[in-house]
């Protein structure tokens, strides 16, 4: 179990990490999700012991490891860049942490072959990393992290430099690898979809703060504040400022739409309403869908789905619709909002009442 207690990091006058608490259990996969410079790498460096926290303490299995150097901790790290020993074969690359640990030759051989098999590297064991594709190089780095048998494995955007399709395949393999060892895995990414595909737990980061931590799908469905909701949305979240008055959400005193049941208890007054693009549709598919008149901007088609950018009362929204819909720009159309999934946030950005579990 890794515990961060009130850990912070400042460099000069700059705050890299605001005081934060985080508890990661053994055998879990934990995603750090946030945009570039949100503090993901800083937090990982603190966890690894590469940097010393400016305040707070770090505990591993109850033991205070705050001042302990990285060499004295049992940590493995994989980076965005493919880092391998260029002069060594893939076999020796994978074997290197065990050689340093002084394992016997038979154990090394067994472990290397097991890891190579797991990561589909067996045919390339005799090659040097520079003669491999990017995906194979990164798999070599991953294999090295696995055989190290570390209790904490840190992966800093490990798939960012790989081809899209390869990413998809490795993403599927990774949770399987994680499940096999009892280590704590921490995985940093900028992509919400990657977090969702990996599952596990997610901590959302924004400007050096951990805004929320919990099971990935929970954080996605029930973000605690607008910032978290925004961080955890791809395609981007649709947001609109409204005023609640009785059973209606008003915009400039014109009814935008009716307040759905799960938000009925909300106090009257200004609120920020947000929802995901796939909760807008061209046809009233869901019961209780609310008709919304919009003006179309542009359509993007991905084959299975279309992203239709629309303008509602001066606010730009994206609608994600199944199938192919190449709608002419600058046309007035009616679309339908599935209000059961609306999220509401108060003026301070905190979630007022998220969608109840029954509707999700």
């Amino acid at each position, binding site marked *: 179990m890794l515990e961060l207690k009130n850990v912070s990091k400042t*460099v000069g006058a700059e705050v890299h990490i605001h005081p934060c608490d985080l508890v990661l259990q053994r055998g879990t996969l934990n995603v750090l999700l946030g945009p570039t410079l949100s503090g993901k790498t800083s937090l990982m460096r603190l966890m690894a012991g590469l940097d*010393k926290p400016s305040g707070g303490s770090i505990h591993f299995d109850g033991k205070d490891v705050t001042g302990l150097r990285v060499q004295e901790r049992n940590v493995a790290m994989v980076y965005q860049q493919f880092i391998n020993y260029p002069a060594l074969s893939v076999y020796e690359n994978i074997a290197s942490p065990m050689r340093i640990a002084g394992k016997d030759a038979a154990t090394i051989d067994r472990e290397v072959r097991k890891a190579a098999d797991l990561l589909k590297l067996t045919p390339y064991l005799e090659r040097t990393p520079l003669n491999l594709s990017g995906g194979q190089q990164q798999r070599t780095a991953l294999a090295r992290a696995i055989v190290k048998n570390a209790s904490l494995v840190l992966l800093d955007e490990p798939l960012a430099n790989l081809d899209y399709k390869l990413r998809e395949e490795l993403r599927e393999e990774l949770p399987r690898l994680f499940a096999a060892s009892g280590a704590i895995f921490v995985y940093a990414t900028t992509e919400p979809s990657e977090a969702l595909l990996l599952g596990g737990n997610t901590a959302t980061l924004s400007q050096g703060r951990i805004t929320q931590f919990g099971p990935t799908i929970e954080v996605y469905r029930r973000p605690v504040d607008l910032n978290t909701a925004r961080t955890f949305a791809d395609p981007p979240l649709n947001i609109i400022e409204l005023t609640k008055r009785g059973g209606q959400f008003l915009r400039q005193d014109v009814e935008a739409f009716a307040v759905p049941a799960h938000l009925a208890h909300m106090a009257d007054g200004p609120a920020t309403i947000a929802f995901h693009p796939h909760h807008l549709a061209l046809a009233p598919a869901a019961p209780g869908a609310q008709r919304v008149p919009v003006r179309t901007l542009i359509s993007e088609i991905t084959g299975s789905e279309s992203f239709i950018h629309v303008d509602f009362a001066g606010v730009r929204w994206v609608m994600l619709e199944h199938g192919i819909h190449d709608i002419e720009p600058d046309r007035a159309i009616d679309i339908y909002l599935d209000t059961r999934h609306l999220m509401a946030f108060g003026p301070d950005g905190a979630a007022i009442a998220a969608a109840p579990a029954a509707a999700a």
Partner: protein
Amino acid sequence: MEKTWNNKAWFLVLPVLVLVAFSAAIPLMTVVNYSVQDTFGNNQFFWAGTDWFTEILHSPRFWDALLRNLIFSLVILAIEIPLGILIALNMPKKGLGVPVCLVLMALPLLIPWNVVGTIWQVFGRVDIGLLGHTLEALGIDYNYVQSPTAAWITVIVMDVWHWTSLVVLLCYAGLVSIPDAYYQAAKIDGASRWSVFRYIQLPKMNRVLLIAVLLRFMDSFMIYTEPFVVTGGGPGNSTTFLSIDLVKMAVGQFDLGPAAAMSIVYFLIILLLSWVFYTVMTSGDAQA
């Protein structure tokens, strides 16, 4: 980025600290010690205060030598830096030409100072030297033993021949680190050859040029061996630089006090000028 505190690090740098202490710090202290005392031999010393400094700073001999040094360094920089950049720009970026050029460029750097001096001394002699004799035959009046101008030209040409390669190699290293995409983008943007140099190559060479200028300045300001071997500081005092004067004073005349005071002044001047160069050349970074 702040690193974990590690006491072992001190043990690792200890040998260097000891070496620096014995090779730089302690001799420097000795020099400071000499500069404020007088001696008539027999290891007897008398307190002299700042007298030696006053004497040095009021001696025309010192100021003449200093001026010669400054002129020499500025001429050297004005020739070697642009020439070095020019050669580096025209060196091949790939293929068999690269190692060939690099070896050719490194050759002068491998030759010891005094050998360079000797080579040029012989090369330039009017009676037996190839260069001197050829120039003589062409009717050009060239004799570094008699003409101060010829002596200066010889020393400058020697230094340029010896040290331009260093500038070339540094600039070349800077140039090859520029990704191809920059050149492609510049072509697409319709940039002229000059624009490519001005906006891509020069900014990317900024760092190495700083090193090149500092190294060449400090080195040329301390020039000793070449003029000593070739001209011995002459004809007259025309190529007597500070370093030569210093040695004459300390070893030739055994004036340890004034020599020590002069070395300190000399040292401070180099420090000051290097700082000026550094500040001027890095001021662009601070704005960004």
